[in-house]
């Protein structure tokens, strides 16, 4: 007697989605990333305030209360973090999912994402606070060029490579119990802090742009995603370092001339 459950029909859209989500559970986490991106793009439509203007340090310093300003900018910062660093977190989210029992898979992935993005949010708040302070003493292009130069050096530095290795490092997750919950968050924090170490100058550059910020956010998002997934990113580091160096010189030339 054949008592088998019918094989999942992968010819229907629902069947395909269900199958895809089972073998790639991390895809679920692309939904908030995609929604954030749509929200950002929509905010550039006529008669709306671009979200990138909200977290513009050059405008923010006009208000004297720094903590209050930072607090007001938190939603926009979270959005930017999700867009820029969410795709780079997907491999780690997948590892957390694969390494977990099926009934706590989503929880484990969410815990990882929480740990990972928390590190970035903290970094963003600190960077924003620094930029707000700098903005009172330096011109906008000076801040931007400074971070471009820092990025150029950072991309080719020994430290960048070390952080990147830690960014890729996976840890063992216990199967269940409080150890499993803690381990997933710790794993997210471990990878997240390493990724902050890897990419903080790029985030600072994205924040420092006054014009065309959305384009640079998208460019840097694409770059960090490729960098994270590239198995041997040494060449990418060098190329991007040169690109940042050239860009800083190009921006510096008009000021000198």
């Amino acid at each position: 007697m054949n008592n088998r459950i019918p094989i999942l029909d992968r010819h229907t859209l629902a069947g395909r989605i269900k199958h895809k989500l089972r073998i790639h559970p991390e895809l679920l986490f692309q939904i908030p990333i995609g929604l954030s991106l749509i929200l950002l793009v929509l905010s550039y439509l006529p008669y709306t305030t671009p979200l990138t203007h909200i977290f513009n340090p050059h405008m923010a310093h006009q208000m004297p209360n720094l903590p209050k300003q930072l607090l007001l900018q938190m939603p926009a910062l979270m959005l930017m973090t999700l867009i820029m660093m969410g795709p780079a977190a997907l491999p780690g989210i997948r590892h957390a999912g694969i390494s977990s029992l099926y009934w706590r898979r989503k929880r484990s992935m969410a815990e990882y994402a929480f740990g990972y993005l928390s590190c970035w949010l903290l970094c963003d708040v600190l960077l924003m606070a620094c930029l707000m302070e700098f903005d009172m003493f330096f011109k906008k292009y000076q801040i931007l060029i400074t971070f471009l130069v820092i990025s150029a050096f950072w991309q080719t530095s020994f430290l960048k490579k070390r952080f990147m290795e830690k960014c890729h490092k996976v840890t063992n997750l216990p199967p269940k119990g409080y150890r499993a919950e803690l381990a997933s968050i710790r794993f997210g924090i471990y990878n997240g802090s390493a990724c902050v170490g890897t990419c903080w100058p790029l985030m600072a550059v994205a924040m420092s742009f006054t014009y065309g910020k959305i384009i640079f956010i998208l460019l840097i998002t694409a770059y960090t995603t490729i960098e994270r997934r590239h198995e041997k990113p040494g060449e990418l580091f060098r190329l991007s370092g040169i690109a940042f160096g050239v860009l800083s010189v190009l921006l510096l030339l008009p000021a000198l001339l």
Partner: protein
Amino acid sequence: MVYIRRNIWNMSSDDPIVVSYANAVREMQNRDINDPTSWLYQAAIHATKLANPLSSWNQCRHGSWYFISWHRMYVYFFESMVRQIVIEQGGPTDWALPYWDYNLPGQNSIPLPFRNATLQDGSPNPLYVSERAQGINSGATLPSTITNPAFALSRLFFVGASEFGGGKTDPKYRFWSLTGRLEQTPHNDIHNAVGGPFGWMSDPATAAQDPIFWLHHANIDRLWWVWQNMPQRANPTDPDWLNQPFGFINTSRQPVQITALQIQNIVAQLNYDYDTPSTTGEPLFTPPGTGGPNDIEWPEPWPKLSANRFDIMTLEETMPELLGATNQPLFLAEESAKVRLSIDDRALRHSASLINQGQLKRKVFLDLEDLDAEDNPGSIYSLYLNLPENSPEDVKPAHHIGNVSLFGVERFQNQNDDHLNHTFRISIDITDFLEEQAADHTWQDGENIDITFEKQSLGLPAQSEMGEEAASDSGTPDTPAIKIGRISLRCE
């Protein structure tokens, strides 16, 4: 002309093949390292610790589906070079590299010509290396758990971390963690057993400096040839594997490139063969799953076999389901250790449902994840599945599922290798073992699986036979513990 690689144990110490090899090794050792035909240059092609290495050095591939093919190429070019030197020295024109079949009875110790520091005339023996495990040069015997290739030969598929040849990897990487079963046992295990904690053979950067390395790899190559010619086996047809070129130096000292497509048939394409096709002369293994019953009473709640496994082997994409794992890392330093893996009931039922839906293949794997040690400890642990307490020796083979040894672990820690951080892992397909144990009711509890680790030791000869080795023995040195980050069971 087809050159025949012969079993070293069937030759006497004064056989022209052995004497010629020794003379050629001596000649190569005397050449400058920058000469491609020198001993150190050839060894460095595999790996070296030397600073400022040449671009043709550090080329070996391990933990990858390229392991077997790259080493066939490597041994082939080395053999051609040695043959040329042998002929120049007036040796046999049909000289071919011998192999060491450690799995044959009475041949599980290092061959006699490699043991003595000096030759009969008092001159240094070029085949002798003092940097070997204690007892090896005195004739210590290797346990069958590490010499037996039966499990590797039983694998029907080439590609996969728990299959014969290893998992698919990027050709750029020299060390990866998708070690095939032949690479693990006997390959890695023999390296560790001969090298011990501090010997040359235990470290990829020095292994090829030991003249026994080449005979060991000739045997690994022979085992691949045996596997290729067994029923239901086939080499990969993936163009990524077939057409990937690797660079070597030919006998004219010129760089050449060769692909796996050019080394498929050792007789027709490479002009060599082996004097014997199998290790025992008898059928090596009955392929699992081809003649066994399909209605095994698995301990509940293990899923019943609901379909012929081979019908659903071709699923294009799968996602493994974790069934259970250890909570904490295990440190192996003692003679033995035992771990109980609890199977999660909900995960098991979920997997059973996926198997019934055709989304899983009903294959069960035991994974040893994140293996690590400060250095390669040179030790080898055998793994036993559901081994009862105080089992006699004759019961153990039925429970033996594989070995743990960390040949190459140093390369995973090499910060300057431009490798991203990936960890050493071992993956063993235990589906057939569980089926067998379920069939004969030796595994009763379906919710737990016991894994026993037992350190394998060499059969040391009597103190009186150990000579200098016994005199220099200052106690067993402390070897670093092996850390196993997690032991897990997954269904795929």
